[in-house]
């Protein structure tokens, strides 16, 4: 079984976001970029499937500028076998990303696509579900356990009230949640090996995907700032403030 894993290059989760003064977006120049944390979890899951003999090949795909190749290299260093860069300088929306992934899936015929449940930049939480829809495949979102068994996968999902278990027919799209696994750190020998692994290059146009956005971003603004920072001396003062000043208890 082949497993396809999309990986997104995003601003590192530790970086404090700065909104551009002209309201056109957030500052991305000279900012540390990393793989979306949920995509690391997806790669880890796919590599573990390979190590367990469930998957034969893990393909990492990134859609973005030339530098997205670095994100693919990270995936290769974690254990993916080869990469595909869908090169574009446009900021593709989830629908266009899903169309690229569909085109690649038609070509590569994976049995499983593991997608991070959301990217921590646009927080859309759409790509996996959309890809499944376009392919006409089953979807198992917010996964915390995935067990592949023949032509099916049994997936435990993190839902609002607790956990839910479903069985999906393969091929399917799984979206990974935080508790699916703990991604490994790539070892130095594996980082060196990753440099020799192949990365193919294509583009949205080659895949027949229209890049035109459907959403026009009018402005990006800072949220209202919260005035915090006040301290209380002790528990008695805290209760007093909550009862008499804030009047919330």
């Amino acid at each position: 079984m082949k497993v396809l894993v999309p990986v997104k290059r995003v601003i590192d989760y530790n970086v404090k976001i700065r909104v551009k003064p002209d309201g056109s977006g957030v500052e991305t120049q000279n900012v540390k970029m990393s793989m979306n944390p949920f995509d690391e979890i997806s790669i880890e899951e796919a590599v573990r499937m390979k190590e367990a003999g469930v998957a034969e090949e893990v393909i990492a795909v990134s859609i973005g500028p030339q530098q997205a190749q670095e994100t693919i290299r990270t995936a290769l260093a974690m254990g993916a076998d080869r990469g595909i860069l869908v090169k574009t300088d446009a900021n593709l929306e989830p629908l266009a990303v899903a169309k690229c992934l569909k085109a690649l899936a038609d070509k590569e015929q994976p049995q499983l696509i593991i997608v991070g449940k959301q990217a921590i930049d646009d927080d859309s939480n759409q790509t996996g579900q959309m890809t499944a829809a376009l392919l006409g495949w089953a979807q198992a979102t917010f996964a915390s356990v995935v067990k592949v068994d023949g032509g099916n996968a049994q997936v435990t999902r993190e839902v609002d009230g607790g956990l839910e278990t479903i069985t999906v027919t393969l091929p399917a799209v799984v979206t990974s949640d935080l508790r699916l696994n703990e991604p490994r750190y790539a070892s130095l020998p594996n980082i060196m090996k990753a440099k020799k692994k192949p990365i193919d290059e294509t583009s949205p146009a080659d895949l027949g995907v229209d890049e035109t956005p459907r959403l026009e971003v009018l402005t990006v603004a800072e949220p209202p700032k919260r005035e915090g920072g006040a301290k209380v001396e002790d528990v008695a003062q805290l209760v007093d403030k909550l009862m008499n000043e804030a009047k919330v208890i």
Partner: protein
Amino acid sequence: MSVLVLAETDANGIVPQSRNAVTAALAIDSDVHMLVTGSDCSSHAEAASKIAGVSKVLKADDAAYSNGLAENVANLVKNVAASYSHVLVGATSFGKNVMPRASALLDVQQISEITDVIDADTFVRPIYAGNALATVKSSDAIKLITVRATAFDAAASEGGSASVEDVASAGDTGLSVFNGRELTKSERPELTQAGIIVSGGRGMGSGENFAILEELADKLGAAVGASRAAVDAGFVPNDYQVGQTGKVVAPELYIAVGISGAIQHLAGMKDSKVIVAINKDEEAPIFSVADYGLVGDLFKSVPELTSEIETRKSAS
């Protein structure tokens, strides 16, 4: 054209987040319909018909919808959506699962987790864990939207008298099968609906230690939540998690105990009306958003807080 709200149901009826979505829908257009799906869902449809502001209820009654499987519900939404300008759903695990699938079937770029309606085409949504707010204008013919419940009041559950109309089922795709659900049992209020939340982080040290938070919560009639660190450490189940990728809450009072205040946690609670932080590290970022910060040992402060509240309440 009218606006459609996809309702979500559970054992207690229509979930409150569906009524928050009705309020968002009414900000777009005055003619709001609601789609109710399920197996033997007449009572849910009747409940929907009473929600203030809903003028028509569409009922799709089929076993295929009994567990909210995305493949089946999305096909139905696709069939029904053509008569509407917008389709909205609460941004719950159900809404987030179904709506993007329906959007792709309709070739629409969904707008996720809106917090404000500017006009029929223009919406505000948080990005980067709420550290920036994007105002976006959609050029799609139909807009599919998930609604962040904390940003809109819930429409009243009584007061409406909508008609109920059956719609044809889109059938069962057979792509996925529901096996079961393990819901966390609790007598306490649900996190997203609670007026007061007591949350614990890594500083709690263990799941057993959450008992002191539960005592405080019970004194206040509060829900118990947690940071990602506490959930990842296995102290409490996943559905306790408050944050960017967990639940977004905005109670009257949020008490953060032993939580350092990582960006992704703040994203889930910083719209709370009053925030209290209890942490032994006075440099913890949580204090920068707290209205009342208490620097100290939580294992001493929390039981003290519980008994102090008890004393004051019995005195008043």
